[in-house]
């Protein structure tokens, strides 16, 4: 790739199929509000705008438990806590849950292990989070299985009210687990979702961990060289 081309790739900035193309995955969870975009990240240490300093320290530790440092950096070094603070600042509906969940972690650490959350060891983190994670995974599995079963029944009539018609879908009975699940599970799901989204869209997560190598000029598309399976 020539220097000019590299430069062009760098300064041009992509929409990722936000147009009417039905990507199967749900939208990035919790990102309902656009921030003012900036081409370059701000220099210097980040000052959280929603979380208080002690809450933020718990959040930083929690994100690193969810995506730890291995041969590549973990969540905090990838800027995930900053990302979560921005999302939660911009989306008020997440604020009570985020605050309550962090307070719950602090209280559990104190009550069960008589320690500060940030100084828990690996097995203690697992003892706190594994039940929550299992419950979240079980609910997601059940939701998928319900979709297999729930062939849209009857003649459902629905209206897309505006020109943005794409959300139009027949109403299929899907269990709304978020309202039924208990607070710590909902909190874990929120933070795991945000941590995964934040990490794998970061420079560290996308380039170093996942090894993304696209967005380049290829003179031709290579023939597949993977042998038959």
């Amino acid at each position, binding site marked *: 790739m020539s220097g000019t081309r590299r430069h062009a790739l760098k300064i*041009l*900035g*992509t*929409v*990722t*199929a936000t*147009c009417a*193309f039905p990507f*199967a995955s749900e*939208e*990035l*969870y919790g*990102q309902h509000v*656009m*921030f003012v*975009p900036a081409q370059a990240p701000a220099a210097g240490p980040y000052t959280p705008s929603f979380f208080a300093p002690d809450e933020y320290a718990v959040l930083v530790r929690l994100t690193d*438990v969810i*995506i*730890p440092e*291995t041969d590549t950096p973990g969540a905090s070094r990838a800027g995930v806590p900053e*990302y979560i603070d*921005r999302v939660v600042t*911009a989306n008020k509906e997440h604020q009570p849950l985020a605050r309550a969940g962090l307070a719950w972690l602090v209280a559990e650490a104190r009550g069960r292990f008589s320690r500060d959350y940030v100084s828990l060891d690996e097995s203690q983190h*697992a003892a706190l989070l594994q039940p929550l*994670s299992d419950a979240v995974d079980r609910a997601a599995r059940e939701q998928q299985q319900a*979709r*297999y079963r729930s062939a*849209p029944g009857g003649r459902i009539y*629905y209206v897309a*009210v*505006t*020109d943005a*018609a*794409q959300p139009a*879908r*027949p109403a*299929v009975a899907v269990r709304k687990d978020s309202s039924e699940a208990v607070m710590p599970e909902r909190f874990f799901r929120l933070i*795991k979702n945000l941590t995964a*989204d934040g990490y*794998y*869209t*970061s420079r560290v*997560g*996308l380039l170093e*961990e*996942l*090894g*993304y*190598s*696209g*967005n380049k*000029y*290829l003179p031709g*598309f290579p*023939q*597949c*060289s*993977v042998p*038959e*399976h």
Partner: protein
Amino acid sequence: MQSTVFDVVIVGSGAAGGTLASHLARQGVTVALVEGGPRVDTRTDFNTHALPFEFPNRQIPAMRPGKPGFDSERSRGVGGKTMLWNAVALRFSQRDFKGRTHDGAGEDWPIDYKDLAPYYDRIEREVGVCGNRDGLEDLPDGEFLPPVPLKCSDEILQRAAASVGARIIHVRKATLSVPMNSRPACHFCGNCMAGCDVVAKYNSADVHIVPAEKGGRVTVFHDSIVREVMVSGGNRATGVRYLHRIHKREGEVRGRVVVVACACAQSVALLLMSKSRRYPAGLANSSGQLGRHFIPHFTGGIECVLGGLKGSRSANDEGFLDHAYLPSFVHGNQDRGYARSFGAQFNYQNRRLAGWAKTLPGFGQTFKASVKAAYPAILDFTPYGEMLPNGSYIDLDPDRVDKFGLPLARRHVRWGDNEEKLFNDMVRWSLTILQKAGAEILTVPAGPATNHELGGCRMGMDPRTSVVNRDCRTHDVPNLYVVDGSVFPSASEKNPTHTIMALAARTADHIADRLKRGEA
């Protein structure tokens, strides 16, 4: 106020409007192309090559800073939806035109495949469509540029599909696989739907409109939101009245012929808004059919991890998004229990977002390792089904207006018995093929989603049951035409744009001919 009277005034500059303008201009016809959005330059204005971490919220805006906005809701901007489309270009087959004759449901088109075939040829020659000649009865071959190689994952799926009697072929796209007419070949950066910055992918602005403007016969009125088609006391369309997007002033463009080509629901809305004493229920709506027979495609997206690629080395395989296509293969089975059929688009996911990662179970090192292993193997698979005319319709919202004070179009989508059976069968077939391919299913659809809006100004021979005739001319007004997906009487399961462009080229010939003979 314009004093010029153009030969033809076209509302909308997308696949239909751009093709029409170009083909009319080549025959000496003067054209006003009236577009509701700004002029955008695909080389410089879109955020084509950005990566998510360049933005604090990890969402890449469509446009670069300081560039005019491209209305993402209605794709307003010169070039319309072709600026951000995925360029799949499929010919409809004779079965698609004669669905009612074939399986007794829905409607036949009043034209045949042979009526459009020469125009499909012409479009392929001028815009460049890559593909393989597969000899399928239900997906006619064309004059293709060389196909692009399949991805490894496509080959895995191809073998799986073959084992259940379905054939996966090279996708056919209006994207260049070799240089053509000073446009370069695709370089496989994977950003097709973010605005192709080299015009390897067809867009109507660069391929049709700008060259026609240079020829002097096409005048573009951008940022001009048409709010009414004007009709004289003598029942002739005389032009359009618009609202300027920026300074909000009204203006008029007059012509001998008016063509409405601003995409399905908006074309219907414009005609419904164009009320007069003669047409109190909307222009060209004496039959009451305007807005009826809305037949969008419906889809059911599945996300999975292909077992054979799990844990493999991350490859640069975004290509030009999907490289393969699963054509309809069930229409020959008379015992399937429903009318019409489905095809599937798949393997169009990009690798710069991993929204699926959070759906993998657990946390910690094992979670991190499972995401990394799945990453090169993630695959999106989306079957597209045909909706029958089932009572779904478009109307104007009586209570809500947009920021310009114009009524919003409403889509009323009915989910009929045939749709339900077809949806369930297409999801079942998709899962069967994916499981044969060794895929772990991550997500199945919660229900159908609509895409590719079609119908609302049905084409037909009978003025009592249709809005336009076989030449896309309205039954009611002799110099008013509608050319876009709204005229489709039956939707097929195939992506509609190629057929819209072929219809536009055919209508251009028809209009130019009438103008020459002094009939219009």
